[in-house]
């Protein structure tokens, strides 16, 4: 806003300033029997009917997702705090992914920290002990100072919270894409383990039961935080729609925030502040309450604070709730009723307690040093009623009006007229299998890819996260899917998060389907059976037809892929309005998958296991470089379209690799994804032998273009290695699954015998050699205009240096 701009002459009505439209106000009146809401009620509606809490734009779409059944082991699905799937032995796994994008954009450390805290609460609210966190982070240009500030802050937030709370961060993603420049994505997935008997619902059954609040006290932090922040774009010029992003002032200098009216106009930061120490106490106290059978229902307080927790638990049980405002412990004096009701102060829990259990509940909370108070009772009238000091009724709203009967908008979806981004000025607009420079050696391309910001090792980041606490981590971050064993059993859980925003920007259906394929494939190649899918749908402003079309297509892709692969979607989160002045983000359907490995001793890893093992390629390359890391590196315009996805082929390849793993045929298994086959082979080499590395010699048949075969990212392909005696059976098994398979090389030999041998009889330096042959790679590659030469030869030391230094270099960090 500039000084020259004239002051607004007429003040907007309160409901609009709270982000409630005129139509929505009319719908509120309908649900209140025709009367106007008072200011407190309006504030409660405004947070509960925010996009973040109500899913008012996405609910009809989400109903199209396959949610699974008891046959899939699903014991809790969408609508609960987290999905829960049974894994046998009386055990179940709870998991969910959630976004904290907008708070992290405003205040990266606290935004990310409270993101971790919020998703952990969703897990232990179900009765599960959180055993792992994965964080999927997306930022703009890594060379940009603002991006570096955000990366640093978000990493501090994720690490600071997870490390202290004692839950290992075992995986995730870090992706840079220009579309996230003004709007980073912080998606956090948590996994918990529970005895099925401890499964706890976030419901408020039993008229007369006590409503108990425990954990931190309630303050003015995060007033309308996640709910309001996440429900408008950063480009929105209307200050009333996003009152919260003007960070800088720490206290309200106005007339003590007398009403929503004055507070909305204040510039109080609405990002919540996290306290991982309190969260740790909350975990232990909550699990102790659940195991002691002391609570009839449990709900964490997140977006929407007490308003959300009370109305959701009441609505789920078909009951009501009468809340005594004065009984709510506060950390600040003179808080207004609406502030108490919508505060998003962190680390709080709401428990429904039978009266004769209250003393026991209080004892547990006090033992853990947590404030605890009875703040109300469960009623039978279906209303959430807020009572003030002298018993005066301050608000009365049907619980359902705030939750299950919240407004739903029919948004308009329309595909863009031009589905592909125009080439940026100066970018060559010719379709090409070319490289940045003509005649460039493919080995140099591989080194460049492996050292690029998106493909380099993430070690510099994940070494700041405790990945081993709880003594369950079998495979931590850095080598594909993460693996945690289940103590006392032979079982292990395998988890991965993935989203393909590059293809999503070109084709949102394909981007979503590829994300599911990639995440599940990452789990399957370990030998594990994917159990289910959680998702975080990060999209733009749903009131824009093109953005809503992207969301619609994304949900369709998610549903199609999950149906084809036979996987239930057990929950997740939708984050809309991810736009800034530089535009909307690329559609980013973040997919989290948890799989079950029955016997952890059969775990297959991506790195080569031993010299002499044979290397086999399963599946086949299909054309299409658009959306690939190679295309980005080469600065190619998206001319040829992304590679297609055959979901039936994907299902077959995952079934094949699981069977091969369980039958003990595989020494290693890696899929082909970012950077293509060349990068997959390089990772297999680098990750071999506890990261000490093993070279490989590969003869690669090239059908059409060396660039497509080496660097293309067409899906449903695997690089596996096996002892020679297993190769015939492996080939047979692949054919039984209808899959192309070809032996392409051997681990640990140096091949051509030229170049990099060390002198004086030392063992030759390990390297990756890929000879290209076949119709697409005759010696006449140059004649055909291909810019890729006929052999790729790179020393592992060079690959390792590129991979290990790439991220720090991109972010301008000193390396160590």
């Amino acid at each position, binding site marked *: 806003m500039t000084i020259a701009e004239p002051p607004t002459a007429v003040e907007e009505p309160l409901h609009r300033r709270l982000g409630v439209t005129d139509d929505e106000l009319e719908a509120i009146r309908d649900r209140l029997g025709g009367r106007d809401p008072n200011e407190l009620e309006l504030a409660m509606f405004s947070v509960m009917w925010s996009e973040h809490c109500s899913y008012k734009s996405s609910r009809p779409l989400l109903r199209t997702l396959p949610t699974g059944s008891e046959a899939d082991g699903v014991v809790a699905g969408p609508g609960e705090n987290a999905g829960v799937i049974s894994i046998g032995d009386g055990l179940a796994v709870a998991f969910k992914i959630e976004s904290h994008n907008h708070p992290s954009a405003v205040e990266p450390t606290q935004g990310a920290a409270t993101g971790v805290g919020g998703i952990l609460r969703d897990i232990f609210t179900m009765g599960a002990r959180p055993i792992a966190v994965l964080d999927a982070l997306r930022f703009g240009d890594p060379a940009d100072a603002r991006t570096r500030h955000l990366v640093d802050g978000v990493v501090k937030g994720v*690490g*600071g919270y997870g*490390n*202290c*709370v*004692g839950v290992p961060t075992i995986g995730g993603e870090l992706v840079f894409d220009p579309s996230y420049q003004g709007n980073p994505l912080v998606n956090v997935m948590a996994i918990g383990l529970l005895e099925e008997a401890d499964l706890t619902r976030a419901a408020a059954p039993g008229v007369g039961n006590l409503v108990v609040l425990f954990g931190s006290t309630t303050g003015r932090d995060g007033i309308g935080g996640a709910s309001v922040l996440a429900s408008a774009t950063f480009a929105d010029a209307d200050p009333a729609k996003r009152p919260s992003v003007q960070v800088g002032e720490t206290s309200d200098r106005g007339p003590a925030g007398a009403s929503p009216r004055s507070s909305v106009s204040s510039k109080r930061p609405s990002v919540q502040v996290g*306290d*991982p*120490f*309190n969260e*740790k*106490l909350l975990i232990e106290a909550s699990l102790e309450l659940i195991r002691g059978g002391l609570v009839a229902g449990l709900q964490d307080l997140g977006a929407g604070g007490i308003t959300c927790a009370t109305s959701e638990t009441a609505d789920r049980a078909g009951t009501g709730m009468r809340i005594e405002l004065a009984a709510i412990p506060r950390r600040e004096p003179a808080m207004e009723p609406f502030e108490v009701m919508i505060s998003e102060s962190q680390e709080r829990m709401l428990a429904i307690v039978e009266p004769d259990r209250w003393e026991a509940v209080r004892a547990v909370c006090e033992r*853990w*040093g947590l404030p605890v108070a009875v703040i109300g009772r469960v009623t039978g009238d279906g209303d959430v009623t807020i009572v003030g000091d002298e018993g005066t009724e301050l608000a009365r709203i049907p619980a359902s009006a705030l939750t299950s009967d919240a407004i739903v908008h029919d948004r308009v979806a329309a595909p863009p007229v031009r589905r592909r981004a125009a080439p940026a000025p100066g970018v060559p607009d010719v379709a090409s299998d070319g490289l940045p420079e003509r005649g460039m050696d493919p080995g140099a391309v591989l080194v460049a890819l492996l050292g690029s910001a998106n493909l380099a090792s993430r*070690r510099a980041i*994940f*070494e*700041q*996260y*405790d*990945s*081993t*606490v*709880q*003594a*369950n*981590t*079998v495979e931590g971050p850095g080598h594909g899917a993460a693996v945690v*064993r289940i*103590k006392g059993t032979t079982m292990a859980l395998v988890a991965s998060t993935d989203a393909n925003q590059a293809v999503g920007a070109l084709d949102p259906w394909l981007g979503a389907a590829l994300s599911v394929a990639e995440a599940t494939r990452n789990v399957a190649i370990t030998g594990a059976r994917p159990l289910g899918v959680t998702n975080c749908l990060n999209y733009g402003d749903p009131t824009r037809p093109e953005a809503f079309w992207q969301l619609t297509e994304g949900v369709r892709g998610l549903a199609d892929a999950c149906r084809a692969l036979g996987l239930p979607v057990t929950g997740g989160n939708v984050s809309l309005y991810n736009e800034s002045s530089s535009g909307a983000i690329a559609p980013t359907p973040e997919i989290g998958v948890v799989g079950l490995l029955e016997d*952890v*001793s059969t775990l297959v890893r991506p790195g080569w296991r031993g010299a002499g093992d044979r290397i086999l390629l399963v599946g086949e390359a299909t054309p299409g470089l658009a959306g690939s890391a190679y295309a980005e590196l080469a600065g190619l315009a998206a001319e040829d379209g992304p590679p297609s996805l055959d979901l039936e082929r994907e299902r077959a390849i995952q079934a094949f690799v699981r069977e091969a793993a369980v039958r003990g045929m595989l020494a290693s298994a890696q899929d082909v994804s970012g950077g293509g086959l060349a990068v997959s082979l390089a990772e297999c080499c680098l990750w071999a032998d506890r990261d000490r590395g093993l070279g490989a010699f590969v003869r690669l048949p090239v059908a059409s273009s060396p660039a497509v075969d080496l660097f293309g990212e067409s899906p449903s392909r695997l690089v596996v290695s096996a002892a020679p005696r297993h190769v015939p059976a492996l080939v047979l098994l692949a054919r039984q699954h209808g899959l192309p398979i070809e032996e392409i090389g051997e681990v640990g030999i140096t091949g051509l015998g030229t170049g990099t041998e060390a002198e004086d009889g030392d063992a030759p330096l390990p390297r990756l050699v890929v000879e290209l042959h076949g119709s697409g790679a005759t010696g006449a590659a140059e004649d055909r205009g291909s810019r890729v030469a006929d052999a790729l030869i790179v020393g592992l030391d060079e690959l390792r240096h590129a991979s290990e230094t790439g991220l720090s270099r991109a972010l301008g960090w000193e390396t*160590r």
Partner: protein
Amino acid sequence: MTVRIGVVVFPGSNRDIDAVNALEVAGAEPVVLWHEDVSLDGVAGVLVPGGFAYGDYLRAGVIARFSPIVRALVGFAADGGLVLGICNGFQVLTEAHLLPGALLRNRGLRFVSREIAIAPERLDTPFTSAIPERRPLRMPVAHGEGAYFADDATLDALEANGQVLFRYVDPLTGERAGGEDDRANPNGSLRAIAGVTNAAGNVAGLMPHPETAVEAVLGSDDGLGIVASFVASAAARERAGGPALVTTTR
């Protein structure tokens, strides 16, 4: 009868889970000791585990030293009882002056979580006696304040008295790690010191996590020798019914 080993739990302890698991793997019976307890429940030894005791917002371990359980621990140690502090437990024991030196912010200023290697300086202590030979032991570190610090005179005295228990080493060669520029020294500890004992030799602390590296499925079981030494020494002491059998001054 299996030996009972106490595991102190402060609000904010989190590697107590790892400690309990390691003690069970080593054949001991873990006994949880709550921070408000004033008695050690007759345990034969006490493990102070990692985590963020009381949140560690001020400085690691600084509040924990005033807890009832640590006061009990001071008496137990004075009587020769075996105490092992790991990570935050090490920080607590230095703050309580049961161990010399201090743990400062990592020299790289960032939290460090990765596998490192340490090697025992001697194999004749209650905490290393079950380790068959001196070789690099691989285990994770995970801390933000782990740079071992003491003044030169103290460091000289520690070395002269044989109180340096573990040093960071190169995982392949076993050579002592260098200073803060050497990746083998994850936090910039002076003289690559990863763990020390008190002068009497019955209290020890180290920053790395042997209790997390006790099963091959977790990537390494090199830490089991340390936990098993501690358990066996505590059992031996209990059988003898007296002060620590092992004297460490040489």
